[in-house]
C-alpha cells in the first residue's frame, strides 16, 4: 500500500469527476458506494482505479436507493463514506437523504446535475437545486455547496466531509455535467499542508461497554409514535440547524457596493456572471454579482442587506426558477424588482448576460 495519495501540493490537469475522486482520497474517505449514471461515472471509475493502491473500499449497489442507504450504513459504522449521483439517481437518493436528515447522519453526496425533469439530457443543467436543498419528505436540514471550478470541487469535497462530521447534517457538493466533464488545471494538495485537520469519525453502532450500564444506549430512530413526539424531535433538529447555519453559510460578492443591477447566479454560471460584470463595468454600467456558495443554508440576511440599495435583481440560472425561489424566500418583504434569465438545461455565456442586462438598462 502506498503512502499518502497527495503529498505536498501539485498542479494537475483533469476533469471535474476525477477531481472529486482525488479530493475524497485526500480527505481520507474510507469507502465509496456507487451506482452508474451519466455524467458522474468517472467519479467511480477513478475511485476504483485508485482505491486498491490506498486500501480504500468500493461497493457498487443495485441502484441509487441502495447507494444512498449503504452510504448511511457506512457512516453509522463510523466510516468516512460518500456517494455520487445525478438526475434521476438524485431523485432515488431522496429517501435515504431524508433519513440522514432525521437521524443526523453525516453523509457526503456529490451531485453532478444533468437535464430534468426525469431522464431528460445526460449532460447539464442547474435543475436539481430544489431537490438537493429541499428534496425528500423533510424540512431541508441539509448543507449544500455549489461549486464553480475544479479547484472548488476539490476544496469543497474535502470540506464536505468535515462539515458533515462536525455539524452532523447530510452534506452535498452540487456540481453539474459541464464541471464533471470539462478539463482545467487546479492544485491538488494534502489538506494537512493547509492546516486542515479531518474531523474524526465515530461509529454510531457497535460501541464498547454495556448499554444502560457503561453508557447510554445508542437508540437510533427515524420513526416516532405520536405527533407530539415528532414535533419535539423536528423542533430540536431545526434549532440545531439554525444554530450552526451562521458558521456554515458562504457567499461571494463582486462589485455589489454601488450596484444598480445585481446578477444572482450560482455554480458554473458564476463564471459567466463574473465575466459579464467585468464587461459591463468597463462600459461604465453599475452592475454587480451576488454568488451564493452554500445554497443551503442560504445567505439570506447578507443578500437582504445587499439588495436594499439595488434597483433590480436579475437571477440567472440554467433552470426554470429554482435559484429564484431560494432568492425570493430569502429576501421576502424587499420590494426590489426581480427578473429571471432562465434557461433550463442550457449553458449560459457571459455575452448573453451582458446583452440581456444592457437591454434592460
Amino acid at each position, binding site marked *: 500500500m502506498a503512502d499518502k495519495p497527495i503529498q505536498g501540493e*501539485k*498542479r*494537475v*490537469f*483533469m*476533469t471535474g469527476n*476525477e477531481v472529486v475522486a*482525488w479530493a475524497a482520497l485526500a480527505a481520507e474517505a474510507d469507502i465509496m458506494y456507487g451506482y452508474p449514471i*451519466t*455524467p458522474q461515472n*468517472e467519479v467511480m*471509475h*477513478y475511485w476504483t*482505479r*485508485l482505491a486498491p493502491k490506498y486500501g480504500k473500499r468500493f461497493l457498487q449497489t443495485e441502484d441509487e436507493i441502495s447507494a444512498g442507504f449503504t452510504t448511511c450504513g457506512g457512516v453509522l459504522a463510523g466510516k468516512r463514506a460518500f456517494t455520487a449521483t445525478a438526475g434521476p439517481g438524485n431523485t432515488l437518493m431522496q429517501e435515504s437523504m431524508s433519513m440522514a436528515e432525521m437521524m443526523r447522519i453525516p453523509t457526503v453526496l456529490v451531485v453532478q446535475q444533468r437535464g430534468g425533469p426525469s431522464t431528460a439530457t*445526460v*449532460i*447539464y443543467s442547474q435543475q436539481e437545486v430544489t431537490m438537493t436543498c429541499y428534496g425528500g419528505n423533510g424540512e431541508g436540514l441539509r448543507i449544500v455547496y455549489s461549486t464553480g471550478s475544479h479547484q472548488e470541487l476539490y476544496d469543497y469535497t474535502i470540506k464536505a466531509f468535515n462539515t458533515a462530521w462536525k455539524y452532523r447534517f447530510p452534506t452535498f457538493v452540487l456540481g453539474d455535467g*459541464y464541471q464533471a*466533464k*470539462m*478539463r*482545467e*488545471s487546479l492544485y*491538488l494538495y494534502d489538506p494537512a499542508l493547509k492546516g486542515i485537520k479531518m474531523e474524526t469519525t465515530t461509529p454510531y453502532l457497535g460501541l464498547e461497554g454495556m448499554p444502560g450500564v457503561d453508557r447510554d444506549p445508542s437508540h437510533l430512530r427515524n420513526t416516532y409514535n405520536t405527533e407530539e413526539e415528532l414535533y419535539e424531535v423536528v423542533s430540536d433538529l431545526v434549532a440545531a440547524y439554525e444554530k450552526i447555519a451562521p458558521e456554515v453559510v458562504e457567499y461571494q460578492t463582486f462589485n455589489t457596493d454601488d450596484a444598480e443591477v445585481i446578477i444572482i447566479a450560482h455554480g458554473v454560471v458564476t463564471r459567466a456572471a463574473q465575466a459579464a460584470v467585468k464587461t459591463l463595468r468597463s462600459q461604465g454600467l453599475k452592475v454587480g454579482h451576488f454568488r451564493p456558495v452554500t445554497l443551503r443554508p442560504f445567505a439570506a440576511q447578507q443578500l437582504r442587506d445587499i439588495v436594499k440599495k439595488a434597483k433590480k435583481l436579475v437571477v440567472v440560472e440554467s433552470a426554470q426558477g429554482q435559484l429564484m425561489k431560494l432568492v425570493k424566500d430569502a429576501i421576502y418583504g424587499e420590494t426590489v424588482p426581480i427578473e429571471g434569465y432562465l434557461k433550463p438545461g442550457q449553458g449560459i455565456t457571459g455575452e448573453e448576460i451582458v446583452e440581456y442586462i444592457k437591454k434592460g438598462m
Partner: protein
Amino acid sequence: MEKIADRIVEAYIGEYASGKSEVSLNRALSLLESGRSPVTLVDFDLVEPFYTLRPIKKELEKKGLQVIAWETKKTMGLGEAGTLLKPEMRWALRRAGDVIFDVGYGIGGAVKLRLVEDGLDGGEMKIFVVTNIARPITGSVEDIVEYVGTLGPVDGLINNSHLGDDTDVEIIQEGARVVAEAAKRMGLPVIRTTVDIRLSDKIGRTDTMGNPVSYLKRHMNRSFW
C-alpha cells in the same frame, strides 16, 4: 487487398482526457498542409463521446479533411450519446490516402480497433499512446508503464504534457523526460512532443530529450458536446 505504398495509418489511443482528439486532428491537418491528399480523420470514440470531433466536423471538412463522424442529433435512438459504429468507420481503410483514428479512451477504446476492417491485422496501422503527465494517474514513469501495459499493441508514445491554459515549458519538458524514460523501459519510441502553438517561441523544434516537436492549434476547446 492492395496495400497503398507509403500511406499513413495511425490510431491515437490513451488515458481519458489525455489529448487524443486534439493531437490526432492536428496530425491530420498537418498531413493535409504538407500536401498529402486525401486525408481522412475518423472519430472512433465508441466509449464516451461527450467531448469529440462531432461539433467541429464541418469546420474541419471546410479545411479539406475528410471526416467520418456522427452528427449528434442523428444518433437519436442509438444509445445515450450514440456510441455506435458508423459503417464508414469500419471500412475507413478501404479509402485512398492517409487515415487517422481518434480512438475512445483506455483499453475499452483500444479493443474496438478490432472492428476496423484490415485495422489491427492489415500491417499498416501504427498505434500511438497520447500521454499527459499532468494527469496524476499517468504522472510517473511507473504509472505510464503500468497503464500502457494494459492497452494491447502499441507502437509508440507521444508526449502531450500540458496544463491547458496554464501550460508552461516546465511541464512539457518534464513530460518529455518522464515519457522518454517510460518508453525506454518498454522498448518503445517516443514519436513526438506536441505543444500548443502559442508556446512555439518558448520551445524550439526539438524538446529537451531531442524528440521532434509538433505544434497544435487548439480546436477541442470549442468542441464540448
